[in-house]
């Protein structure tokens, strides 16, 4: 008997995301955002998703909001970093068309960790008392530390149904190597029920076996592997290519002018798949971004 490969087409892998699902995906600002997968979520017409973004997110969330895919968003940071506020996020919250849970970096990280560990909840330090989080977000529950009698704040585990993680290298069985910064790639894999890896490159399992300490996500957590070179464009894929600043500025400018629909038409719906998208960006541009 032969070991089964987990390699799938993007379309097949993303189909697992049903309307109403709770998802998470990698991102620290413009690093390792699985943008090709996000475009496919929009292309397949997903609706009413709940997204638990990593602590510093923006581009993918803003696009999903503009496409009408989101119902609920957890918010630690949703912005465009050096390009300013995320325009569609801002408008959606100001116009009450998106339900949000205001959280923050430790709440998301510790919530993912609680889900990864299967513990009932996670207690956060007393100093949340000095903020407005407990006032606006019912997920923060004031509790008493049974050992000291001091106040603490309980938050529930954050357990996405599906996590999408972009990496540089992965074998056919889901053993992934994530280079560059460690932006919750392995954490959300551990927190989620179903894991989709999108990867710049598929490497043989023998390469993984030659240096198991380099594997950052074990295949046992992974359900699908999708080969997507430049799958993080217009964001950066650490150690592979930089972010496409010109493209990002164009996005930000269209978004500010309430023209995100045009962007989506041109870059999501017009290309029928990721490779048509790459053709549209053009080989010259892609190679300019590449790190040699």
């Amino acid at each position, binding site marked *: *008997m032969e070991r*089964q490969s987990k390699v799938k087409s993007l379309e097949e892998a993303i189909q697992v995301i049903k309307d109403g699902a709770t998802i998470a995906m990698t991102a620290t600002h413009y690093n390792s955002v699985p943008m090709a997968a996000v475009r496919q979520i929009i292309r397949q017409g997903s609706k009413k998703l709940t997204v638990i973004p990593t602590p510093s997110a923006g581009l993918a969330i803003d696009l999903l909001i503009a496409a009408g895919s989101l119902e609920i968003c957890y918010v630690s940071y949703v912005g465009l970093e050096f390009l300013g506020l995320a325009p569609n996020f801002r408008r959606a919250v100001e116009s009450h068309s998106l339900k949000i849970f205001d959280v923050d970096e430790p709440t998301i990280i510790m919530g993912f960790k609680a889900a990864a*560990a*299967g513990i009932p909840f996670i207690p956060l330090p007393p100093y949340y008392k000095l903020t407005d989080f407990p006032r606006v977000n019912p997920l923060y529950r004031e509790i008493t530390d049974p050992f000291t009698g001091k106040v603490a704040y309980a938050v529930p585990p954050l357990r996405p149904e599906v996590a999408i993680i972009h990496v540089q290298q992965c074998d056919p069985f889901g053993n992934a190597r994530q280079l560059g910064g460690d932006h919750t790639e392995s954490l959300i894999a*551990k927190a989620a029920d179903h894991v989709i890896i999108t990867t710049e490159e598929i490497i043989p399992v023998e390469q993984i076996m030659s240096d*198991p300490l380099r594997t950052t996500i074990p*295949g*046992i957590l992974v359900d699908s592997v999708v080969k997507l070179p430049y799958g993080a464009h217009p964001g950066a894929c650490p150690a592979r290519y930089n972010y496409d600043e010109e493209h990002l500025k164009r996005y930000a400018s269209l978004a500010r002018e309430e023209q995100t629909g045009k962007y989506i038409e041109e870059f999501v719906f017009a290309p029928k798949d990721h490779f048509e998208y790459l053709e549209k960006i053009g080989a010259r541009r892609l190679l300019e971004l590449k790190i040699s």
Partner: protein
Amino acid sequence: MEVAACGYSTAELMAVVLSRELRDGEFGALGAASQIPMAAVKLAKLTHAPNLSWLCGGSGAINSKLPTLLQSAADYRNLFGAEYRTSMEDVVDMEMRGRVHFACLGGMQIDQYGNSNMVCVGDYHNPTVRGPGTVGLIFTAAFGRVYIYLHHHNPQILVEKVDFISGPGFYDGSRMRDEFVNKNAKGPCMVLTPLAVFDFDEISRKMRLCSVHPGCTVEQVLAKTGFRPLLKEPITQTQAPTEEELALLRTQVDPEGVLRQLIP
């Protein structure tokens, strides 16, 4: 049992019996003193379960390819050809959350409900024997299925009631257990000893003798068990290793013959 008498050793038989139980596509965890289950998973991967993945105890290796059975699962040499090095934190997370489909473990005492004890023999506060401690036995409440394997079969190990519950099996046999364990934790499903194979009755949740190994009798087993197990009708003889199983075991899994020396 001598190898000479029947062509295979007790530990080889136990490894083969266990390997047949393991299912393709699952993820299993082994603890210390794991030569038998280690051989079982390696054999299962070669026969019917190529998609089985396994954690080699304290080494953290997932899917070790080391072509020998070391006496310590924690030996870092088990990282040879592995696909991932799990940290202890990862191991706790995966086991606690219930990501592990099956685990193979032992104990100083195992009782008729499959509860296990590694803490003490006798009263906790005045023990006759202080054991090493529980390590990860708590996760018998979180593993999908638990295989208990023992290197010795005697009334000191197989007891009516453990003196300390380190790892909950079916607790007192009542349904109370189900309220507290992880959703998919089905509890102990097999007890494998040098003499026999047991499972657990679905209704009473008590240990039940299923088969005795070639050369053993039901009477011998009952005499060496510290309680009266249920008897599955008919009690069969444990199926001996096939030639193919034995050949794979000896050429690819255990070329150094560790299993032939393991249980005197």
